[in-house]
C-alpha cells in the first residue's frame, strides 16, 4: 500500500527558522538524518521516491479563468498555516507502518538538535501512473 508523507513546515517561522538559517552543524545533522532515513527506507524495500520543494518565496498559485488570462499570484494562501517543504512516497505493508515512519520524520533534528516535531500529513495514494501508461 502506497502512502505520501508530506512535510508541513510552519509558515509563521519560515523566515526565521528555516533550514538554511540554522548553524552549520545543525543543518548537517538534519541532512544526515534524512540521508539515513532514506537509506533505511530503501533497505526495507519501502522507498518509492522523495523530493524537497522550494520555499514559500518561490511558490506561486495559478488559477485559470474563463474570461481572462490565468492569474499567477504569490503563494502560499494567506490563511495557510503551513507550507509543503517536501514529501516521501513509501510503499508499506500496513497504515500503522506509514504512521510510524511519519512520526520518525516528524521528529527529525532541528535547530540545536532538538526534534522539529513538524506535522506530517499522511495520505494513501489512490492510483499511480508511470510514463508507460499515460
Amino acid at each position, binding site marked *: 500500500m502506497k502512502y505520501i508523507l508530506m512535510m508541513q513546515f510552519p509558515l509563521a517561522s519560515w523566515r526565521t527558522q528555516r533550514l538554511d538559517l540554522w548553524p552549520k552543524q545543525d543543518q548537517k545533522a538534519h541532512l544526515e538524518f534524512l540521508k539515513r532515513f532514506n537509506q533505511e527506507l*530503501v533497505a526495507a*524495500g519501502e*522507498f518509492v521516491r522523495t523530493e524537497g520543494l522550494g520555499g514559500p518565496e518561490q511558490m506561486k498559485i495559478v488559477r485559470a479563468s474563463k474570461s481572462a488570462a490565468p492569474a499567477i499570484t504569490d503563494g502560499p494562501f494567506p490563511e495557510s498555516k503551513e507550507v509543503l517543504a517536501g514529501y516521501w512516497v513509501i510503499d508499506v505493508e500496513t497504515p500503522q507502518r506509514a504512521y510510524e515512519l511519519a512520526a520518525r520524520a516528524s521528529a527529525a533534528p532541528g535547530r540545536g538538535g532538538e526534534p522539529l516535531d513538524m506535522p506530517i500529513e499522511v495520505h494513501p495514494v*489512490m492510483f499511480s501512473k*508511470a510514463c*508507460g501508461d499515460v
Partner: protein
Amino acid sequence: MTAPPTKADEHLLRELAPQVLGAIVRRYGNFAAAEDAVQEALLAAAMQWPDEGVPDNPRAWLIQVAARRMTDQLRSEIARRRRETEAHRQEPPDADLAPPPEDAELAEHDDTLLLLFMCCHPVLTPASAIALTLRAVGGLTTAEIANAYLVPEATMAQRISRAKQKIKDSGVPFAMPTEQESEERLVSVLHVLYLIFNEGYASSIGEELQRSDLVTEALRLARAVHGLLPDDGEVAGLLALMLLTDARCAARTGADGELIPLVKQERSLWDRALIDEGVALISATLSRGSIGAYQLQAAIAAVHDEALRVEDTDWPQILALYGLLERMSDNPMVTLNRAVAVAMVHGPRAGLELLATLAGDPRLRDHYRLAAVRAHMHEMAGDADAAVADYLAAARRTASVPERDYLSTQAARLAATRR
C-alpha cells in the same frame, strides 16, 4: 548486435526458471545464492539464444550455466574463508567443489511446488512473498516486478533480498513438508496467487497494461499449480475463479475508463473461451464432491457468467452458494454479497434487513461497499432520498477513483429524477 529474445524464448525461459532453480537448490542447498545464479543463467540465455539458437536441452544448458556460477561463487567464498582462517586450515566440504552429476530422475514437478512452498512461506509478509514468487517461480526480472508494482528497482531488489534472508534465517528446508503442513502451505500459496491476480485485476483499469501482466502471471502460475496438483479442489477452484473473472475484463470498463458493474456489462464482450474453460473446470471439480471457499466463489462467478442476459441470472442458486460460503468463512463481505442475492430473490426489504445486521461489524461499518449496496437496495425499494444519501456516503469512503466516479454519478442521476 544481439537480437532481442523472442516471445517463444521468453516463454520457455519462464517455464524452465523454477525447474532450474529447484535443481540448483537441491544440489547446493543455498537458496539465496542459487536464486542469483539462476537469474544470471536466464540472462545469459536471453542474450545468447537469439543469436546461437536454443540448445537441444535448454534445461540442462541453464542448469550447467547456473551451476558453474555457483561453483565460482563457492570457490571465491572458500578462498576468502581460507585467507581469513589460514591458521585453522579448514577444509571445504567436498560437495562444494565437486557437485554430483545432475540426477536425471529429479522430479522437476516437485521442485516447482517446493519453490512455491518456500516463496510463500508464512514467515514472509504478503508483499515479500509476492515479490519472491514472481521472481523465483515466475522467472520475472526484478525490473519487471518493480515496474508492475510501480516502485523503484532498488526498492524491489531489497524486498527480494530481505525475503531471501528471512527464509535463510528461518531455516526452512528445501524439502517436502509433512502432509498436514503441506495443506497449510498450499493455503499460503493460493493466497499469494490470489493477491497477485487481484492487484493486476483491480488496478488494470483503462490502459494500465503493465498491471494486466500480473493477471497473466497469476493465471500462468495457477495453471502450473493445477498441473502439479490436478486433484486438489481448491487449486482448481482458484484457477476457475481467475478464468471466470478475467473473462469479464473487456466489459468491466467503459470508453473513459469508468467502472461498469456486473449487472450493466455488455455481455457479448465477455470472453466465451475463458468462460467455457472456467465452467468446465469448476463443474468437474464440484462433481467430485469437493468443496472449498475458492470453489464456491468460482461457482458463483460461473452462474453469473453463464447468464447471457442479466435477467437470466439464476439468483436462487447464487443465494444458496453464498449461504454455503458464509458457513465456511467468518467474512462480513460474504454476508454483504449474500444480502445482494437475498434482495434479488426475496426483494429489497429482505436485503436491507440482512444489511442491518452488518451495520455494527467494525470490519465493515465504514466500508464503502456496505453503503453502496444499501444505496442500491434503497433505490430498488423506491426510496430515492435514502439511496442518494448512501451513494454519496459510499463515494466519500472509497479509495478508488473509478468507484468514486461511479457512485457519485449514481447519486447525481437519482437526485435529478427527484426534481
